[in-house]
């Protein structure tokens, strides 16, 4: 039996093309094994081989999702592989979304078994874990070995059409699929066991986890915008020149609160970005491209809005833990309420 043919998708960084300055790299295909593909190749031994690697810049994909998807699909089609693997993307947000989008498309539009891999907090995970197998990885490329160890066996099972075990056994993110199986204890007995454990304060595992829908309903609209105080919040890492609070360029542990009283325009002299997850050239040239202080000042002067709030709040949304972002925002939202802010413009890069 011949080897299974695999096409592998990676971003510009893992292909060794470059970092953020190359994130607009358009899709290209190379008939070679690159970056993480080498570890996959070693794992597959003689069972499967990577016949082509498709590379696309993360920003290009994120900004042109439909086009990029079409281009990559065409490339995959050309090789008619038995299996498609994207990533692993770890906690790189745009990369994770790209991997999920393309794995989903290859599987559901071309009918080719696909899988990807990323950290559970990657936004791509929530978007696609129901439709494709997403191997759960650590939050950085330090978890490559561990990721490959889980990807290889799952990939081989998928391509051979073997039965896939539970998320815990195989190491993928739960897809919310329920499966019937036989067990020697009937339901009433299991339920009583669980109840007893619960009463004793012991750990127990539910057989029917409830999905976690954390949605917040929209607040009513602003009645009179000409009297409203508007605050700026950003995950784009906007900071005063010199980044006085030393906000981390990725996995931010803090946020900043910055006074913009008297500032009518952001310039290379008074503002920059601390964000390490996108090319900072444009933001450092003119930070209004990330937080629109100049325009909001004009609107304030013209009476189109009541007031631009004196402070803006900023953090770096680059691999930042969801729990941290939540904590930051819960904290400063209290201040915004106390300061009488009526509405917020939140910008993201």
């Amino acid at each position: 039996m011949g080897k299974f043919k695999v096409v592998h998708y990676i971003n510009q960084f893992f292909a060794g093309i470059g970092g953020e300055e190359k994130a607009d790299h358009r899709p290209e295909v190379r008939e070679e094994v690159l970056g993480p593909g080498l570890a996959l190749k070693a794992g597959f031994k003689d069972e499967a081989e990577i016949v082509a690697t498709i590379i696309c810049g993360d920003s290009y994909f994120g900004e042109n999702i439909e086009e990029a998807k079409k281009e990559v699909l065409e490339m995959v089609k050309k090789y008619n592989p038995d299996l498609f693997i994207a990533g692993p993307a770890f906690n790189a947000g745009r990369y994770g979304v790209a991997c999920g989008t393309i794995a989903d498309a290859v599987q559901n539009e071309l009918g080719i078994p696909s899988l990807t891999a990323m950290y559970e907090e990657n936004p791509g995970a929530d978007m696609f874990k129901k439709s494709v197998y997403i191997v759960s990885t650590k939050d950085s490329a330090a978890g490559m070995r561990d990721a490959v160890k889980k990807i290889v066996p799952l990939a081989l099972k998928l391509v051979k059409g073997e039965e896939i075990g539970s998320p815990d056994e195989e190491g993928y993110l739960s897809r919310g699929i329920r499966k019937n199986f036989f067990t020697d204890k009937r339901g009433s007995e299991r339920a009583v066991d669980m109840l007893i454990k619960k009463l004793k304060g012991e750990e127990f595992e539910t057989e029917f986890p409830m999905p976690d829908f954390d949605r917040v309903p929209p607040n009513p609209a602003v009645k009179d915008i000409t009297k409203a105080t508007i605050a700026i919040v950003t995950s784009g890492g906007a900071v005063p020149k010199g980044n006085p609070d030393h906000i981390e360029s990725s996995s931010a542990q803090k946020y900043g609160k910055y006074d913009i009283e008297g500032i009518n325009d952001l310039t290379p002299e008074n503002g920059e970005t601390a964000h390490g997850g996108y090319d900072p050239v444009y933001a450092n040239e003119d930070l209004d491209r990330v937080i629109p202080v100049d325009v909001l000042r004009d609107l304030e002067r013209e009476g189109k809005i009541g007031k631009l709030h004196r402070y803006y709040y900023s953090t770096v949304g680059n691999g930042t833990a969801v729990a941290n972002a939540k904590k930051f925002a819960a904290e400063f939202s209290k201040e915004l309420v106390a300061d009488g802010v009526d509405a917020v413009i939140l910008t993201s890069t």
Partner: protein
Amino acid sequence: MVKEIERAGIPVVHMCTVVPISLTVGANRIVPTIAIPHPLGNPSLDPKEEKALRRKLVERALEALQTEVEGQTVFEMK
């Protein structure tokens, strides 16, 4: 962050380029922007045009804040 601001009772509009991410994180009012490294600008325009573009985007965001919504709503540029 957008959810926590909303939870605190303040209407919030999310201006971002990758709309699917915004939908996933649970923003209710969304205005799509230009590009990841410069959501509210376009360096290939001259400064005056660029500011006019930014103003349009911000005005759209203000419209979004003045619009009652039932659930997640994307306010495309007109």
